[in-house]
């Protein structure tokens, strides 16, 4: 008499866990480094080189709701040579685009800080477009303990 309900509860529990696991799997299936790459490629035409771009973010973010990120680009920001645009993506988010910055030489220094929602452990990818059309790229991994999407 007493064992029957226990069994069903256990079964119900394992069923629920299975459901959670499949939801998590579905979430991860949404994660799209490829679509991040495509988005960046659609904006910044050409092949980005390594260097010049520095990403600062915590190695481990406890809360994915607001992960601080600082992106700086090495540039003198003069009329002759400046960063025209900076594209930032998070390659494991359901929607990888994060932000686009467009600068003029008046900015004086190509460095920006912002806070980003991250759904899971993933990479920030930043591409800088200089006024002469050259592209620079950098990425940085952030481990996320609690995701910051949906809920």
């Amino acid at each position, binding site marked *: 008499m007493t064992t029957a309900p226990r069994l069903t509860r256990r079964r119900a529990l394992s069923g629920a866990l299975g459901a959670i696991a499949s939801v998590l799997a579905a979430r991860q299936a949404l994660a799209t480094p490829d679509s991040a790459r495509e988005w960046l490629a659609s904006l910044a035409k050409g092949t980005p080189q390594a260097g010049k771009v520095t990403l600062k973010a915590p190695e481990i973010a406890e809360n994915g*709701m*607001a*992960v601080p990120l600082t992106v700086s680009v090495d540039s003198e*920001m003069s009329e002759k040579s400046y960063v025209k645009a900076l594209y930032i993506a*998070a390659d494991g*988010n*359901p*929607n*990888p*685009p*994060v*932000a*686009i*910055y*467009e*600068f*003029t*030489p*008046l*900015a*004086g*220094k*190509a*460095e*920006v*800080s*912002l*806070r*980003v*929602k*991250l759904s899971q452990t993933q990479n920030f990818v930043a591409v800088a477009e200089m006024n002469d059309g050259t592209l620079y790229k950098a990425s940085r991994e952030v481990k996320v303990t609690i995701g*910051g*999407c*949906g*809920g």
Partner: protein
Amino acid sequence: MADDIKPRLRVPSTAKKGEVVEIKTLITHPMESGQRKGADGKLVPRLIVNSLAVTYNDKPVVNVTMEPAVAANPYMAFFMRVEESGTLKFVWTDDLKNSWTAESKIEVS
């Protein structure tokens, strides 16, 4: 709800000619990503501040296009080179084309 949305600025009021100053801004806004489900189990429609335009004496300094991944109460910090006294103007716009404006004066000493 729109009444709760307030821009905040942290901008120096004086600068030396040619100095590069840091500008910090924040606007209180929920930044609904369109991915979150509400209490009724339905998706909450997307409503975010999608752009911030910064000008100094009407000359563009930085334009930011924001996506839903930008965290709630979007904080944005960046720099500007000050060559002359003037007014720094910020305009935030959301998905419904509502906009909020803030201004700050910088005196070159």
